């Protein structure tokens, strides 16, 4: 008996000392220069390092990532991946593994993390609405069903069809702001008090397809698909309601077919100007952030999808919809001149700048690679293999409002 106890003690000691020896010898991995890349066709993600421009690991089992986006926990350790199949997956980028995964709806589009980092919200198409989870446990905190759309047939389970939700972002004051595609609304969900407060703005314009929030979290702008224009909500003055801006930017010009909806992620702003994609026009629109009027337009190679400003705001980088999606154009934000046209390859889907903007990574879906360029000379520095890459997300997003 005594012998047995001693043995157990010895074993326990070995196990313990083994543990501490392991942690002493394992190289520490900071997360501030890491990123996660979606591999949309295979339900995988890659963990990458953007200081050394290298791949660190690949993680399987994230379901349908054909449309996916990511937000990061404020400690930059966990990535929350929002998948097309309603999957919400929490990834530990330190351990290269899935921490937790739930299926929270039938079909989702994106998500956001709250100001205090404790809530993760997901916007859903089916059933339409927003669900809010505890960021640590992924337990449901709140369910916000969207407006019922009477004209649409009920879902398979007999419940009424509800508006799809797009353009979900976090805002200061522990708020989430989002747009309702089918019912032309913007809603603000305030989680600063014990009980959630919901504010609804109706008739904001036809078919809001996506939205963005300014880096200071003040202005929420939804792009409209059903009409030329955008809808602006000043979160410092919500009592003023939603204001229509950029009315009739097409000025009666024939609308070109839109083969892919533009994305309004991030905020391309430089000096007094903001840059946004036109819908159905091969143009980037220039808006004055003082008057919110259009002050100009930049002719572009195709229907813009992402219009993204470098962190220093000196240049904007633009990618395009099918069939012109093999091209990137870079424009100067001071002169609006075309700096360079790049042809990275078939289907350039997304770009991500390093935190201070010396490099930009871009996913080239159909050549199965991620290309890294320097922003100064726009030269290709390195190519990394990836299977059907789409979104690229660096961990510094953890500390940016709206990302």
């Amino acid at each position, binding site marked *: 008996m005594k012998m047995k106890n001693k043995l157990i003690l010895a074993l326990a000691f070995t196990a313990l000392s083994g543990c501490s020896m392991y942690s002493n010898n394992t190289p520490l991995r900071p997360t501030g220069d890491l990123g996660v890349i979606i591999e*949309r*066709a295979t339900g995988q993600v890659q963990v990458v390092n953007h200081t050394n421009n290298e791949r660190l690991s690949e993680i399987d089992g994230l379901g*349908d990532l*054909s*449309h996916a986006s990511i937000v990061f926990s404020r400690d930059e350790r966990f990535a929350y991946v929002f998948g*097309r*199949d309603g999957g919400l997956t929490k990834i530990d980028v330190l351990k290269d593994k899935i921490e937790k995964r739930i299926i929270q709806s*039938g*079909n989702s*589009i994106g998500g956001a993390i709250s100001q205090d980092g404790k809530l993760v919200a997901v916007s859903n*198409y*089916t059933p339409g609405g927003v669900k809010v989870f505890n960021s640590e446990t992924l337990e449901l905190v709140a369910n916000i069903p969207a407006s019922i759309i009477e004209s649409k047939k009920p879902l398979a389970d007999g419940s009424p069809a509800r508006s*799809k939700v*797009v353009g979900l972002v976090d805002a200061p004051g522990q708020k989430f702001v989002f747009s309702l*595609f089918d019912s032309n609304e913007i809603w603000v969900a305030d989680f600063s008090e014990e009980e959630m407060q919901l504010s609804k703005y109706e008739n904001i314009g036809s*078919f809001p*397809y996506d939205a963005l929030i300014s880096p200071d979290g003040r202005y929420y702008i939804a792009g409209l*698909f059903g009409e030329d224009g955008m809808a602006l909500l000043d979160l410092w003055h919500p009592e003023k309601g939603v204001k229509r801006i950029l009315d009739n930017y097409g000025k009666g010009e024939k609308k070109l*077919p*839109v*083969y*892919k*909806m533009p994305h309004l992620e991030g905020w391309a702003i430089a000096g007094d100007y903001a840059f946004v994609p036109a819908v159905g026009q091969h143009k980037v629109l220039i808006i004055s952030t003082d008057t919110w009027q259009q002050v100009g337009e930049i002719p572009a190679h195709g229907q813009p999808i992402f219009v993204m400003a470098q962190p220093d705001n000196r240049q904007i980088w633009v990618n395009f919809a*099918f*069939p012109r999606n093999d091209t990137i154009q870079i424009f100067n934000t001071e002169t609006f001149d075309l700096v360079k046209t790049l042809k990275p390859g078939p*289907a350039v889907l997304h770009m991500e700048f390093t935190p201070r903007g010396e490099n930009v990574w871009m996913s080239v*879906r*159909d050549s199965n690679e991620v290309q890294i360029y320097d922003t100064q000379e726009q030269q290709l520095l390195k190519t990394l293999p990836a299977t059907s890459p789409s979104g690229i997300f660096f961990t510094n997003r953890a500390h940016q409002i709206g990302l």
Partner: protein
Amino acid sequence: MYANKVIKKLPSKMLFITTALLTNSSFNNSATAATSSAIAANIAANGTIISVVNSPAISVNSERQQELLHLLRQDCGSCHGMTLKGGLGPALLPADLANKPAEFLAVTILQGRPGTAMPPWNAFLSPIEARWLAQQLLDGVSK
């Protein structure tokens, strides 16, 4: 004009495709002449590999089939989801399309749906290719 160009460029054994194309009188074929001849050239260039899928009248060569399926997953998938379970656009799985005739789907693909986000794809697809894609949707696209 479209039919003439196709007939001129196709080997004789492919005439039945042209016939199918012509009999689809419900299509308002607004593809440009340049696009049409490009499609015709494409078919002619690969004309030896013809597979008959689902319906004897609907034939698209196997190389083009792969291109069309890629287009379906990746580009139609932008709105309808890569697995066609829906997104901003509706789901396109067989159960969702029950009672929708292939002709109707083909016209929708070619001409789009005004008042919605569905654009016309007739600049990239011939009527016969749209009809083939419609049939794939109804049958369920094989993985």
